């Protein structure tokens, strides 16, 4: 099956006062049609930057310095804004974490939603409004006609996120990029939104790139998982391999440090000592070195990202040789 999105050797850097700080370092990944890919990492690891760069939404002081992003056979990095506008909002759309700031507070929901539909699909005012109502009921909003007349502040966080999803789905995209879509929501509402996203994804056979730090969400939604740390990919595998046979010491530690409500109550939570390095472009060798329990002198050298089992990539020479014990997880 052909890949819908193919990212090769992507590097992104911030430029401040003439100083270059590389925050995403040569990442490559692909998304197949109908696949849910999760990119997991802690704050500042570069996961959101990777996602934003796909749609050309990086802030003014951040630039893609190398690599290619090919969507449906076209390199998005070669496009000008006008060409890009045909892709984003149409074939690739985005759902943001901060819904309150992603919706325009002075326009009604109907106004914002029909604008999207009219611009991208060429509908007239009346049929766009009809279509918008249909989309709002599709995402499970009760009384969609009334919602059309409301302003964003009149809706709860969960309802706003549903509106955002309706907007993202309106033009029948092939790929949705969801950046922490439920982080600002309460758990019972998060469950509703998660279920909605995964039902719609199956119904429309879309691909989703889900950016998150929540290990639980990953286990619930992902097909494939990428673990990111300090600007690099550390591990990539199917969701079952990541959770059942995590290879990289960082992945293992990350999974162990999440308190689960069904754990043995007396089990001590494993914590990772130290902190994520803030500036990591100058670190030679493994970037997890300082915090890793399995280090040997060879870890001070550059680590290759290799496929050590079919479909399972890891950036750790010891994991690759099978020298890291794989903790059996329940």
């Amino acid at each position, binding site marked *: 099956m052909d890949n819908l999105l193919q990212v090769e050797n992507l590097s992104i850097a911030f430029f401040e006062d003439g100083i270059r700080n590389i925050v995403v370092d040569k990442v490559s990944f692909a998304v197949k049609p109908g696949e849910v890919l999760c990119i997991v990492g*802690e*704050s500042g690891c570069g996961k959101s930057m990777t996602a934003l760069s796909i749609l050309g939404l990086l802030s003014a002081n951040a630039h893609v310095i190398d690599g290619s992003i090919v969507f449906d056979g076209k390199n998005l990095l070669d496009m000008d804004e006008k060409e890009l506008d045909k892709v984003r909002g149409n074939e690739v759309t985005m759902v943001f974490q901060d819904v309150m700031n992603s919706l325009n507070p002075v326009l009604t929901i109907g106004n914002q939603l029909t604008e999207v539909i009219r611009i991208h699909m060429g509908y007239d005012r009346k049929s766009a409004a009809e279509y918008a109502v249909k989309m709002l009921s599709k995402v499970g909003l009760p009384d969609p006609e009334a919602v059309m007349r409301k302003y964003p502040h009149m809706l*709860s966080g*969960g*309802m706003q996120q549903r509106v955002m999803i309706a907007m993202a789905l309106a033009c029948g995209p092939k790929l949705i990029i969801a950046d922490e879509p439920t982080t600002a929501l*309460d*758990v*019972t*509402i*998060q*469950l*509703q939104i*998660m*279920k909605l996203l995964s039902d719609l994804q199956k119904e429309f056979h879309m691909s989703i790139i889900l950016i998150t*730090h*929540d*290990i*639980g*969400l*990953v*286990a*619930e*939604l*992902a097909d494939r998982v990428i673990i990111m740390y300090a600007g690099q990919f550390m591990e990539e595998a199917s*969701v*079952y391999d990541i*959770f059942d046979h995590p290879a990289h010491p960082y992945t293992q*530690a*990350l*999974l162990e*440090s*999440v*308190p*689960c*409500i*069904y*754990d043995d*109550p007396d089990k*001590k*939570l*494993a*914590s*990772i*000592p130290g*902190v*994520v390095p803030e500036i990591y472009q100058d670190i030679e060798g493994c970037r997890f070195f300082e915090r890793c329990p399995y280090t040997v002198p060879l870890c001070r050298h550059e680590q290759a990202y290799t496929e050590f089992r079919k479909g399972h990539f890891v950036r750790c020479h010891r994991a690759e040789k099978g020298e890291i014990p794989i903790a059996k997880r*329940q």
Partner: protein
Amino acid sequence: MQKDNDRNPLIVISGLKKYYPAKGMHIGRNTPVIHAVDGVDLEIYEGETLGIVGESGCGKSTIGRQIVALEKPTSGHVIYQGESLSDMPFDRLRKIRTQIQMVFQDSNSSLNPRKQVFDILADPMLYHGIVGKDGLDAEIDRLMDLVGLPRSMKHRYPHEFSGGQRQRIGIAKALCVKPKLIVCDEPVSALDVSVQAQILNLLKQLQDELKLTYVFISHGLGAVRYVSTRIAIMYLGRIVEIADTQELFDDPVHPYTNALFDASPLPVPKLRGRQRLVLKGDIPSALNPPKGCRFHTRCPYALESCMTEDPKLIPVEEGSGHKVACPVLLARRIKRESHT
């Protein structure tokens, strides 16, 4: 399980209500009020960690603020070792405050950015006369060791620390006046997962060493379960269920408790297709909470009586510390047990 009357309550909360005027709306006679906490009775026992869980707006943080007497309740009392905090003269309250401390979620805004860590810790100790000028250095070194910060960092400013380290300073600040009770309001919510575990383990270790009592307020069930010995589940200003941690997770009764457990994502991909209770609709507004049981608008088991009758917290068995505010499921549970 331990019976309530064997233990020593440090704090007794009775009939606590806290209403806030809704800002910027209808100024005048009929200012709408937010029913943040609406009739809560609760005991906090010495040496325990009481977890308070609920979604945003359920009133869990408001209870925390009443316990440390940052605000006066609208009605009801918070009684600390026999004395009501709301009726206390200021001088007395000032003394009591050293015994009840708080750790905040946002260590960024709860630490003074213009003070070095040394002064952040020294000022309250000098003010309350915990140590004199001569013992100060040694005491601050001891506190830095206690929370796992290098002593050499004591002359730095808060912004020079990472989020996890700042939370350690927040904990040291709470500890410096030698409290008995610490209210932790979402202490790890703003931190990365790998750092959350460090702070949770630190809190547990300090409790063992210093025989502290905690009130641990959080929306993260996993974290609450990890640190708490007893858990109260809140919904819209009320406690709907309270029990010892193990009992609550083994035998949750209230439909909201069950929904909350089901809604927490599990880090086990094999279980993703499991049966779970998905609640419909949103949390109602605390401006105008539903009559009767506050959960009836979203409850799959609601009967007509739930819309009018206000459920009380009832022990699941005679004398049990496991209490539930749902007569419907409690009746079913008793029926089920008598059959088996």
